[in-house]
C-alpha cells in the first residue's frame, strides 16, 4: 500500500494526521505527568514565592518582600549559603580528582582489577541514610573507628561531629567515600580514548605522566566538564547528611541550604518564604551551570563530527 499512498495527497495527509495522533498518544502519559507533577508545581512555587503563607490561613500576596527579607534581614540565609558554598568549593574538586584518580587506576589491566572495581562501587550502593548512620558511628568521638585510628598512630582524638571547626571535614570525608558514580563515568570515558593516540605518544617517547596530561586529560575533558556540572548541582543540594548527622549544627556549621529551606517550609510553616529560598537556589544553580559552560566549554576538546 505504501508506495501508492505517496501519489495520493489525501492518503498522505491521512497518514500524517495518524502519525501526529500516534505521536501525541504515546507521549501523553509522560507529558501529563510532567505537567501535573513538575511544571505545574514549578509555576505554583513561583507564585508561592511572592506570598506569605502558614498553610493554615490563605496565602497573602507580598510581592518581592520574601526576597528582600532573605537578602537584607535573614542572617541564617547567608549562613546557609556560606555553608553550602564552602562545602561545595572543596567537595567538588576533591571528589572530581579522587574519582579521576580511582578511574585511572581501575582502568589498568592488572591482576585482581575486577575485585577492586566491585569494592570501589560498594559505597555507591549504600543508601544515603544507611551510609549516614554508618558514618555517624565512625565519627563518634568516644567509640568511633576514626578516632581509634588516630589514637593508634599517636594523634589526639578529634571531635568530628561536635566541633564547629571540624565538622565540615567530616562531611568532606563522607563525600570522598561516595565517589562511585562519578568514577564510573570517568571509567567509561577512558574507554572512549582512541588507542592510537597513546601509541603515537609512545613513539614520541612520552612517559606515563606525560601521556596523562597530553592525551588522557584533553581527551577526557567533556567528561570532566559533565562530572563537574553534575557534581556542583548535586553537592549544592545536599540534605540528608546535614539533617541526620548534625541537624545543621554545631552552631549552624552544617546548616546546608536545602536543609534551611526544608526547615522554613516544614518545621516553621513559612511556605512562601521557603518557596522564594528555593527559587534563589534554582537561580544560583542555573547561573553556575551557564557560567561553567561559557567559560570552560571552549576549552573542552570535542571529537570532530
Amino acid at each position, binding site marked *: 500500500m*505504501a508506495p501508492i499512498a505517496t501519489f495520493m495527497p489525501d492518503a498522505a495527509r491521512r497518514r500524517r494526521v495518524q502519525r501526529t495522533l500516534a505521536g501525541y498518544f504515546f*507521549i501523553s502519559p509522560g507529558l501529563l505527568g510532567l505537567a501535573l507533577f513538575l511544571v505545574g508545581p514549578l509555576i505554583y512555587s513561583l507564585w508561592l514565592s511572592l506570598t506569605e503563607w502558614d498553610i493554615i490561613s490563605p496565602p497573602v500576596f507580598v510581592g518581592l518582600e520574601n526576597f528582600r527579607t532573605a537578602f537584607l534581614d535573614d542572617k541564617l540565609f547567608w549562613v546557609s549559603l556560606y555553608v553550602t558554598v564552602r562545602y561545595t568549593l572543596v567537595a567538588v574538586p576533591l571528589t572530581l580528582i579522587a574519582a579521576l584518580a580511582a578511574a585511572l587506576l581501575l582502568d589498568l589491566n592488572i591482576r585482581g582489577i575486577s575485585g577492586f*572495581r566491585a569494592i570501589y562501587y560498594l559505597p555507591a550502593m549504600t543508601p544515603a541514610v544507611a551510609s549516614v548512620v554508618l558514618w555517624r558511628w565512625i565519627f563518634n568521638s568516644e567509640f568511633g573507628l576514626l578516632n581509634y585510628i588516630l589514637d593508634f598512630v599517636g594523634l589526639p582524638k578529634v571531635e568530628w561531629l561536635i566541633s564547629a571547626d571540624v565538622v565540615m571535614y567530616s562531611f568532606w570525608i563522607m563525600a570522598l567515600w561516595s565517589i562511585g558514580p562519578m568514577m564510573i563515568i570517568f571509567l567509561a570515558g577512558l574507554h572512549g580514548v582512541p588507542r592510537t593516540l597513546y601509541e603515537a605518544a609512545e613513539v614520541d617517547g612520552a612517559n606515563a605522566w606525560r601521556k596523562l596530561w597530553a592525551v588522557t586529560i584533553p581527551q577526557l575533558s567533556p567528561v570532566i566538564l*559533565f562530572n563537574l556540572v553534575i557534581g556542583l548541582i548535586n553537592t549544592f543540594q545536599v540534605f540528608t547528611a546535614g539533617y541526620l548527622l548534625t541537624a545543621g549544627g554545631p552552631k549552624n556549621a552544617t546548616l546546608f541550604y536545602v536543609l534551611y529551606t526544608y526547615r522554613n*517550609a516544614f518545621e516553621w510553616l513559612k511556605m512562601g518564604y521557603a518557596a522564594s529560598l528555593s527559587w534563589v537556589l534554582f537561580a544560583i544553580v542555573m547561573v553556575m551551570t551557564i557560567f561553567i559552560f561559557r567559560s570552560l566549554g571552549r576549552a573542552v576538546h570535542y571529537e570532530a563530527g
Partner: protein
Amino acid sequence: MNTISTEAVQGRPAAGLGAGTSPMGTERSRLLGNLGAWGLLSLGGIIMLVPFLWMVLMSFKSLDEVYTFPPQILPNQFLFSNYAEVWDQVPVARFFSNSATVAISATLGVLLTSSLGGYSFARIDYPGRNTIFLLYLSTMMIPFAVIMIPLFVQMRMLGWINSLYALIVPGLFSAWGTFLMRQFMMGIPKELEEAAEIDGCGHFRIYSTIIMPLCKPVLATLAIFTFMGFWNDFLWPLIVISSRDLKTLPLGLAGFQQKVALNTPWHLVMALAVVSVLPILLIFIIGQKYYVRGIVTSGLKGAA
C-alpha cells in the same frame, strides 16, 4: 549513533597509564608500575571497604562490644539474634514492604511511561515533537527543592499525606528515563518497522512486538536506576509520611537512630542499615552490567 558504546569496564586491554609500553627492557619498570598501582588501589580499597565492613560487623556485636574503646574489631560471637531483636523493636517487615511497594510500582510506571515517550520521540515524526523534547530536557535541570513545597501542597489537596500514593504517583514519570529510552530507540534500524508498517501494523503493535523486545537491556538499566532511586529516597518520604506504619526503610532507619539519644543500640541500628542495603546489593550483583552501561549512556551521551 547512539549505540550503547562500551563493553564498559570489562577486561579490555587498558589504554591508560601503566600499560602499553614496549616490551623487553621496560618490562621491569612496568612491573614496578603495576606494583605501585596495586598498592594505591589497595589503600583506596581499604578506605572504601572498611566503613562498609564495619557496619556489617557491628550488626553482629553485643551492646557491650559496641561501647568499648579501643573498639573490638570482631564480635566474640556473631549474634544473628540482633536481626530478630530489631524486628521486635520496629516494624521492619512493614518498612520493607512499604519500600518494596513504592519502588516496584514506581519502577513499573517509569518503564511504561518512559518507553512510550521514548518511542514517540525516537520513532514517530510529528509536528511539535522537538518542542516537547526540549521541554523534557529542560525539566531535568529543576532542583527537587523547588518542587518539594508545591508538590506537598498538591498531595495535601489530594488527601495523600501519609499515603503511599504520594510516594508513587508523582514518581511514575521520568524525563531522564524518557531521554534514556529515546537514545536507545534511535539506534534501532528504521527498516525493522517499515516492514511491519507495510503489513498494516499500527504503532502500538510495532512498539509492543518489535521495539520493546529489542529494548530489554536499556529497560534493565532504567529499572535498576529507578528502583535504587526510590528505594534510597529520603527527603520526599520525610515530607509526606509521618505515620509509623507507612514509613519506608530509610525513614524507619532514620527514625530509629534518632529516637534513642543515650545508649543508642548501635548494633541494632546497623542491623537495620544492613537490611536496607541488602536488596540494592543483590540487584547490583545481578545487574552490574546494566548499571555501568546506564551511567555510560545517560552520562556520556548526554554530555557530549
